[in-house]
């Protein structure tokens, strides 16, 4: 439990995890995966949506603010990136990404303001405004779309210091590096004093305030950082996955998808965002391939997509009842089992464990 920190406050386990992630993402995947389909239809959207889910995780899982509008912030980031590249000559793509995130963060602060007054389901309704307002704004004012009338704008090529990144593998590398860097930053924040303030506000706001935490500052900060992550994710999503910019792609359905990723993955965990995103994204692919390969198309594709909805609905209910900490917690339990330690299964056992550790 009480692992020693060896470098910059990271434990040995953390460093091993980071190293494995880097080698896997930058060496093994590019060596093993040769088909473009895997990059452009699975890995890239997974990473982009996982990053947005990390954003949702920050505001909802850590700061405890029920916000629903991640796709709105993604749209803000995507169109900000488009306009920055269009209007600022020679801007390197990473810089455009950072500014897109900052613009989304400004929207995050604006639409986080209701959190100072309302909470829970009412806040969720209030934050829906961001979803609709941002999309409306982009549609209403032609400037954001550079007065394009077709409705679908092709995204510019990604150019970093003169080198274009246009093949699926190159785009994957851009996405994976950005996602890894931002994820490490998110992990640092959630483990440090910033994250503790968020969680304190989540668990007991009156006590948090009595310890000197400003609710105003902490909540708006969580909204801003969450929107930053969503904004960067939105820009990556548009530039590397959709390769086009259309407000419809960022509709309320996407916001709900990201919400489900966070709930299924496990509220208040960073790896839950990745697990949840993988599940939500891959499950339909899996169902489809079962439909095609096992039943050879005997099942209508509309039925398959209905089954998908039913399964998601059931799973969300099951997780909310039996494992509110989501798949990340299940994963932890399995890991513990393999390491020989028994994972506490039910509530009673957990209490017993706590009592015995206190006695011992």
């Amino acid at each position: 439990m009480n692992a020693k920190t060896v470098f910059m406050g990271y434990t040995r386990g953390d460093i091993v995890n980071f190293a494995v992630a880097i080698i896997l993402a930058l060496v093994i995947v590019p060596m093993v995966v040769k088909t473009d389909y895997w990059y452009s239809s699975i890995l890239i959207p997974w990473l982009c949506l996982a990053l947005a889910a990390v954003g949702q995780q920050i505001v909802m899982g850590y700061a405890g603010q029920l916000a629903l509008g991640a796709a709105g912030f993604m749209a803000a980031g995507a169109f900000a990136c488009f306009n920055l590249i269009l209007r600022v000559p020679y801007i390197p793509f990473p810089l455009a990404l950072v500014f897109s995130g900052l613009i989304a963060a400004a929207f995050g602060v604006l639409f986080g303001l209701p959190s100072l007054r309302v909470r829970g389901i009412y806040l969720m309704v209030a934050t829906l405004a961001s979803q609709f307002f941002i999309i409306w704004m982009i549609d209403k004012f032609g400037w954001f779309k550079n007065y394009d009338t077709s409705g679908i704008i092709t995204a510019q090529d990604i150019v970093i210091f003169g080198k274009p990144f246009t093949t699926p593998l190159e785009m994957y590398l851009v996405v994976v590096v950005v996602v890894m860097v931002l994820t490490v930053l998110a992990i640092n924040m959630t483990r440090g004093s910033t994250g503790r303030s968020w969680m304190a506000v989540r668990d007991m706001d009156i006590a948090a305030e009595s310890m000197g935490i400003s609710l105003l500052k902490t909540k708006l900060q969580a909204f801003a950082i969450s929107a930053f992550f969503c904004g960067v994710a939105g820009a990556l999503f548009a530039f590397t996955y959709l390769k086009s910019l259309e407000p419809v792609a960022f509709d309320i359905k996407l916001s709900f998808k990201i919400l489900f990723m966070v709930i299924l993955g496990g509220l208040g965990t960073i790896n839950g965002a990745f697990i949840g995103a993988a599940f939500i994204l891959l499950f339909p692919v899996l169902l489809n391939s079962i439909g095609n390969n096992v039943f050879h198309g005997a099942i209508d594709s509309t039925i398959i997509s209905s089954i998908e909805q039913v399964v998601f609905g059931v799973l969300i209910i099951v997780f909310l009842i039996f494992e509110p900490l989501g798949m990340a917690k299940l994963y932890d339990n399995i890991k513990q089992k393999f390491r020989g330690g028994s994972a506490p299964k039910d509530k009673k056992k957990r209490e017993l464990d706590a009592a015995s550790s206190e006695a011992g």
Partner: protein
Amino acid sequence: MVQARNFPIGDPILEVKNISLSFGGVKAITNTSFRVLSHEIRAIIGPNGAGKSSLLNCINGIYRPQEGTISLKGEVLKKNSPNIVARKGLSRTFQNLALFKRMSVLDNILVGRKLHMSANFLEVAFRLPGATREERENREKCEEIVEFLEIKNIRDTPVGRLPYGLQKKVELGRALATEADILLLDEPMAGMNVEEKREMCRFILKVNDEFGTTMVLIEHDMGVVMDISDNVVVLDYGKVIGDGPPDEVRSDQAVIDAYLGVAHD
């Protein structure tokens, strides 16, 4: 209690002047005044519903009294909110436990160090040297508190899983971590057995003696109150009906009628 104290009782540090608080038509506190002297242990007693917790909530800034003023270290608290009052050196515990349930014991206590940590989120995100050092130093401070309260074996357990008595201890630890000049303890010993109460008293006296922390505590156990407090305020129906050293208060007829009933001895 008579031997020389490290921090002798001094000037008033907290002054409550003519405060009144009502919720709609219900008067919780009526024109109440008293002073708390620096480095003393002050008990507030009174029957249920006398307004004791409301009084603490007013001092701490959770409620705003409609009338009257509260001053801390000679400074009148205007438009006070709990985080501003905390910044001025006042911390508290709650009657019904207000811990951060999903966080570990150590993290709960670390939240108490919030005002001693100044790194902003960017410094934390990039683990700049300042933020890392600050985190390490404050962690060490919290480890000391964990050691002091003898809860080292549960330091990594989420507090939601702990039994009541231990949660009370963690809450005291979190309040101690703030290193505030004044601690408001709202029934720190409620629901504890004799053994646990004795231990808690020991901690309170030790903190008061070692750090000179002024303590204001609400307590129902008269034995405890008589043992550890320097002065006692008695509230009934939102009014002060007694104020003075424990022995004096105990023999006061109004206090006996309202709260104590027939004197124990």
